[in-house]
């Protein structure tokens, strides 16, 4: 009885409350990017990242609004996989945000379906990329259109744990090492670490990483993809690549056990100090140092190819795109220009989104001597000066996401010993055919 009265009273109260709330909801955020009173323009801007990046973006956007009082920017964010779920729904309704963070593996898909605006017409005016490395600008082109601008770059690196190597008495590879030398070091570490507690291995089986395969292809003088988005390599190439690590897999498997890798996720053998080396993008240094607590992790360039050249490339990170349905593409281009060129923005972000693309922002980095940002920038500059970086980043084809994922899955099966090299190659090519049409 009293419960009923209370419940009815509660429902009535809540009904009134929700009416009031929906009312303020509708007048608060009803705008869909149209211009408001006084000629003010509102831009929607979506990005992925964590709470730390959210803070940095907020500072940068505040600065932008201060400089451009007639433009208001509404931002929103999500974690990487959720971000793409939300974007694909919006793409179906042709209501993508005016400015959005873009990833190379999605670029062709969004550009080919006409979801992105061609930024060529704003070049030189609202959008100034004159200081950018030519190859980096080209990484945002699909066919002839410019659809994305890279805020930063990263490149592949071999991370190693010097303390762990010291303990085991194994020398790290010299800078001009090749793949055979890498195999030797890997095997030496695993043999030296067999009696350690916990047991220490050299590294995981590197042939399971698709980007390393691409790097190796470039070293063989093979462009991985053709201009029109097809594969440019054959089964023989992939077989040769997978066989490359056979000497550390047989007779005894000296690579880091896959069972343990799966157990440790989202950490890795390298970050729990059970593996002494690992390949990854150089900007993962911050994450690796954070996860492992080892401050002095070192970076080396990738192994050299058959002619002694490394042929590394700068992969654009965190590109920015303008959607084709934007009502204010000019202002959107202006926002991108501000984010990639303004020195103060460079100082705000550090290497959070890779090493900044524009020299002005790189110079503005407030680098602490020996700090993480400094080491990543130093690594990229050294690699660039030593002539290791000679290639343009291969523009991934449409369907790159799925074929990379398939390679990763097969790589895992392969590491478990469920597949032979031939089965791996057959299954991957069958799958790639489906995704690339």
């Amino acid at each position, binding site marked *: 009885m009293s419960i009923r009265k209370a419940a009815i009273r509660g429902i009535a109260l809540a009904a009134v409350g929700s009416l009031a709330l929906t009312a303020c909801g509708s007048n608060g955020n009803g705008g869909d990017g149209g211009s408001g009173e006084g000629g003010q323009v509102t831009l929607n801007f979506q990005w992925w990242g964590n709470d730390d990046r959210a803070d940095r973006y907020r500072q940068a956007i505040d600065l932008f609004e201060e400089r451009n009082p007639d433009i208001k920017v509404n931002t929103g964010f999500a974690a990487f996989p959720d971000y793409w779920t939300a974007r694909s729904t919006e793409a179906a309704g042709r209501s993508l945000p005016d400015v959005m963070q873009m990833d190379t593996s999605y670029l062709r898909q969004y550009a080919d379906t006409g979801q992105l605006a061609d930024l060529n017409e704003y070049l030189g005016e609202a959008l100034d990329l004159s200081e950018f490395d030519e190859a980096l600008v080209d990484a945002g082109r699909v066919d002839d259109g410019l659809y994305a601008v890279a805020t930063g770059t990263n490149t592949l690196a071999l991370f190693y744990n010097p303390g762990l190597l010291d303990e085991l008495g194994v020398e790290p590879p010299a800078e001009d090492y090749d793949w055979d030398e890498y195999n030797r070091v890997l095997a030496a570490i695993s043999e030296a670490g067999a009696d350690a507690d916990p047991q220490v291995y050299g590294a995981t089986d590197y042939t399971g990483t698709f980007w390393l395969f691409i790097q190796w292809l470039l070293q063989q003088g093979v462009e991985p993809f053709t201009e029109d988005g097809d594969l440019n390599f054959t089964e023989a190439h992939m077989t040769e690549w997978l066989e490359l690590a056979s000497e550390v897999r047989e007779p005894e498997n000296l690579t880091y056990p896959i069972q343990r890798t799966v157990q440790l996720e989202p950490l890795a053998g390298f970050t729990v100090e059970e593996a002494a080396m690992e390949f990854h993008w150089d900007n993962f240094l911050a*994450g690796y140092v954070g996860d492992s607590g080892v401050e002095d992790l070192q970076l080396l360039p990738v192994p050299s190819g058959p002619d002694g050249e490394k042929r590394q490339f700068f992969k654009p990170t965190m590109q920015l795109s303008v959607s084709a349905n934007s009502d204010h593409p000019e202002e959107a281009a202006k926002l991108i220009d501000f984010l990639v060129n303004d020195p103060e923005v460079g100082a705000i972000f550090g290497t959070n989104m890779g090493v900044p693309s524009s020299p002005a922002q790189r110079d503005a980095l407030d680098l602490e001597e020996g700090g993480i940002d400094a080491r990543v920038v130093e690594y990229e500059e050294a690699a660039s000066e030593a002539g290791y970086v000679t290639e343009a980043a291969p523009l991934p084809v449409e369907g790159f996401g799925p074929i990379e994922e398939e390679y990763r899955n097969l790589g895992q099966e392969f590491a478990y010993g469920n597949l032979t090299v031939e089965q791996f190659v057959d299954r991957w090519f069958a799958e790639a055919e489906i995704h690339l049409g």
Partner: protein
Amino acid sequence: MTTTTPTTGKAAAAAEAAGGGMRPPARSTDHDGGRGRARRRRTWRTFLYHGSILVLGFVILYPAAWMVLSSFRPSNQIVGNVNLIPDNTTLDNFVTAFSGIGGVSFWTFFMNSMILAVGAVVGIALSSTVSAYAFARIEFPGRNLWFALMIGTLLLPFHVVIIPQYIMFNSLNMVDTFWPLLLGKFLAAEAFFVFLMVQFMRNLPRELDESARIDGAGHARIYWSIMLPLMRPVMVTASIFAFIWSWNDFFGPLIYLKSPDNYTMPLALRQYVDQTTVSDYGGQMAMAVLALLPVLIFFIIFQRYIVDGVATSGLKG
């Protein structure tokens, strides 16, 4: 996370029923055979029963306990550690969680979730009872067809309708407001609850509304004065589920809410773990604990009625 709390409730109810069912056979052995042996067997059985319940309870509760205790660990000691008791305790994670994300405070996320959850409860309590009344008590042409269609919507996965729904709400300029998440609930689009209430109402004796009709009451009066009070148990059950589902919903808010000021708790929760930069597992654990608390409190308060609502098949009060 969506189902853990309700199932624990159901499991408890089921366990109670199972326990009740076990006693009579034990008592019947008292009559034949020696008393000592029977008693021994009975203690043995009780021991076994409670022992297995305890073990099962431990297995089920372990992850939850791990989460709560991990939220007091330093961030770098969480993943890969299966121990329950932290070596070092810290409150930093909660400080991180309460400090919000990107300038939006924790309480904004909390209030948004609360508004949506309370809105869902109100909407479902109002709309589902009315439509259930229509389906259960009013003869109208095509009633069975409409009922079947409504049940049919239960079979449609959310992911199938999400894109057309998004396009519709987008052209109504309702994206980035709470409307897309609440409107359906105020229009009885949640077929599950309508179905639940129709089934409940069909069990109520027709004599009650017939006598009200003889006294001159119309549909509105019968609904408000006769049916609604009798439907208390099922309404409480529906409200609890509506609250928990809305509170835990991730996909809907992800699609429809664009600005951080409108984000809900589950969206904020995901923000601490990002594989492309540095993940703050501690912040996430603390946020998860904070997100779970309201549901837990809500459940503890109303748990009595959940069992009540599920168990009541006939008339009460």
